[in-house]
């Protein structure tokens, strides 16, 4: 008797179990390339069979599931495709959440539908705890982002709500008003007065607002030792733009948080996993390298590839665009081609910003060019809360060029 093939649900549950087990070993677990590859190939086969638009892409590439398939050859789905296709391995009406990247005027927002939050929650918690609070949770948190109910389809909002639940003791969620940061100042001053370290989490532009407002308010805050900042994303016209090192210098000056205790997070709506700087761990004397090279967690592989041929990794030190193979994306597409420029740096990558966008057609100037920029602008980011990748929605940001080294959704 030939056994009947597993149902989609059974197959998905089995995959989820294996992925959760891998995540459960932790961010710091040794990389097991063989196990990862086996799981990635099974996941690819699952998505090839059950995600019709993605299968068409695979067929165009002439690639089908194969136990010997090199991971580099798994077809990479452009994140742009989330705006144009429903990319799920399950009936879309069974999605428990649809994270949305907002779009600039005339653009279609992208939607990343998830059949479960279990993988997302497990992965984000593991990485956040490893890189942002490896010494245990700060007793106080300040989140500079709209409350989850105000941005229910924001993946960044969902992530922040998971790591710093609204209403939890010692926590505060605020959207810094560009001209009135008094509420945020009160939260920070209270932490200073109590001598209790605080974790401040938010988008880059929210930190610019905060620093600008604090400067106008008076004496700088000196946050207690152990306080930290996690910033993500760019500016999108929501504030003046500040180079990353300048932003960190401002944060150090205004909040008293040392540079090493400020970490950048890289993530995007279309990807369930995140990457972080390792500086904070090093500052705390924990294992890890004290640089700002992003390294993928064990359930993610990231490559810097040739933009014209995403199967070809660039040489170490060379610049390309980022391709990810993210096991957390079990319900959509695990292999993603981004528009994020990066430099390959050993076993990690340095973010450089967004790749040049599709050319505006027809003997025209873009506003950036009209205002004096070179013909080839460095980036053309989409709308949203954050950085070079299709940003998570919820911040209501407008378009603008990204800073190098920011993250985004």
């Amino acid at each position, binding site marked *: 008797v030939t056994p009947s093939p597993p149902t989609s649900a059974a197959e998905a549950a089995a995959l989820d179990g294996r992925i959760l087990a891998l995540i459960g070993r932790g961010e710091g677990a040794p990389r097991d390339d063989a196990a990862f590859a086996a799981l990635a190939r099974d996941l690819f086969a699952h998505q090839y069979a059950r995600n019709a*638009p*993605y299968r*068409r*892409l695979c067929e*165009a*590439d002439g690639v089908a599931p194969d136990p010997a398939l090199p991971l580099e050859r798994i*077809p*990479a*789905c*452009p*994140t*742009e*495709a989330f705006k*144009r*296709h429903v990319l799920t391995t399950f009936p879309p009406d069974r999605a428990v959440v649809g994270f949305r990247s907002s779009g600039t005027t005339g653009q279609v927002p992208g939607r990343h539908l998830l059949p479960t939050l279990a993988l997302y929650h497990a992965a984000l918690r593991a990485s956040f705890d490893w890189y942002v609070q490896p010494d245990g949770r700060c007793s106080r948190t300040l989140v500079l982002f709209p409350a989850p109910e105000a941005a229910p389809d924001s993946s960044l909002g969902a992530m922040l709500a998971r790591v710093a639940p609204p209403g939890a003791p010692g926590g505060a969620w605020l959207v810094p008003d560009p001209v009135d940061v008094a509420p945020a100042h009160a939260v920070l001053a209270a932490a200073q007065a109590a001598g209790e370290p605080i974790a401040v989490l938010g988008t880059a532009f929210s930190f610019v607002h905060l620093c600008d407002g604090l400067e106008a308010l008076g004496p700088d805050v000196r946050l207690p030792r152990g306080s930290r900042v996690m910033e993500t994303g760019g500016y999108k016209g929501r504030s003046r733009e500040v180079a990353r090192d300048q932003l960190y210098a401002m944060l150090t000056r205004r909040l008293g948080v040392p540079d090493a205790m400020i970490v950048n997070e890289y993530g995007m709506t279309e990807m369930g996993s995140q990457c972080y700087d390792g500086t904070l761990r090093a500052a705390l004397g924990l294992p890890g390298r004290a640089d700002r090279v992003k390294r993928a967690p064990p359930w993610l592989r990231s490559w810097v590839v*040739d*933009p*014209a*041929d*995403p199967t070809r990794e660039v040489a170490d030190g060379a610049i390309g*665009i980022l391709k990810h193979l993210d096991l957390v994306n079990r319900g959509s597409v695990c292999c993603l*081609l981004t*528009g994020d*420029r990066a430099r390959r740096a050993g076993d990690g990558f340095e973010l450089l910003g967004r*790749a*040049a*966008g*599709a*050319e*505006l*057609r*027809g*003997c*025209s*100037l*873009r*506003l950036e*060019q*009209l*205002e*004096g*920029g*070179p*013909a*080839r602008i460095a980036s053309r980011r989409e709308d949203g809360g954050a950085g070079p990748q299709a940003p998570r929605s919820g911040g209501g940001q407008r378009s603008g060029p990204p800073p190098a080294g920011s993250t985004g959704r």
Partner: protein
Amino acid sequence: VTDPALTCAFVPVAAWIADRPRVAIPGDAGLFAPRIEGAAVFDLVARLTGACAARRPTTAAVVAALDTLARRLADGAHPLRRRLAADLAAATGATPALVDEELARCAGQLRRESCERLLALELGDPAALDGFVAVPGTTARRCARAPGLLAVFLPGNVFAAGVTALARALLLRCPAVLKPAAGDPATVPALLHELQAIDPSVTAGVAAWWWRGGDPAVEEPLLAAADVVVAHGDDAALAAIHARVHPPARVVAYGPRVSAVLVAREALAAGADALAAAVATDVALYDQAGCLSAAVVAIEGTPAEAEAFGARLAAALADAEARWPAGAEARGRAAAVTAARRTLAMSEGTREWAAPDGAWAVVVAPQPPDVPLPGGRVVVVRPFADLRDVWTSAADEWASQLQAVALAASPARAGALALDAARAGVARICRPGELQSPPLAWPQDGRPALGDLVAWTWWDA
């Protein structure tokens, strides 16, 4: 011109800018421009205006000078052509072979007959710019007022747009300031230097130099003095210009567009290979960055016939790439092009051919393309049962953004198909292979080339 500060500037009195401070132009070419700002802008405008009033060139002189310039540009061995090709390639990242072909085609716009045709079509008697002339068929007379100062913000992605704008400004024989974009800061100044050497009277009222766009020290006095401002740009760029120009001054704005090729069933049967070669030319020139660049090919036929043409077009694009390699600018957009191609490939029934290095791609799409057309020599081939369906398919948004159409159809059908295109807002119709060789008189965005810039006085004499 050996002074690097002058390569990106032309002011009729060279000594006037010789001791100006210099500013670096953004980009990798290491170019500089003089800094002319504040009161100096007013001073310059006064000089241009005074020069036009004191010794305004004749139309015949302008036409003759442009014709001489055209002959030099058309001559592949002429030093001007060779220098421009090298400079443009360096500044824009386009390959020299491609730029050389574009220059040769562009030269035709400046020929005597092209200039005279434009003047005759839009002004009737060009003497209307100098005084009242008879209006044929009436007892009335009329005269045209050229702008007191014409300001032109040029695009940086297609140098021919600057050449066209320069020729139109010269034919109006009015004071004019042209602002080159950082991406192509030297072409228009170089042409002006050449024209000055041909006939200095022709260029006495014209200046061109790069400045940082939006710089109030330059643009406040300039826009206060200009009464017609011409700008090429996207919505945001044009809105920024509009916000700084106050009535009675006017903005003549050109927005982003694309072009397409329409192939009727009988034309496909008559010679698909030649047609594919012509379409490849329309795609490859200017690395598909211009509003006259073909981005979509509408094939009247079945999906299989479209696919067969797609294969021929792929071969033709490979040939075009060998002849006119894509430039660094186009290749720099490889990430966006790859993303668009791969997104298109996820729609049902698509078929793609692409260069191994991503220099070009053909995507046959039975469904309307649902991504922004990316440029970078990526062309979408769409089958239609009837070419008239192009204009009724709401999902084919590109059809509402067309600047021009290259039409391949039998003489019996061409008239009706052209009328459909015209009614849909297409500004120019030509044969495949000729999209990038427009006449000087072509109505960009559907508007008259000179008529938009002049004002008329009608005298019922």
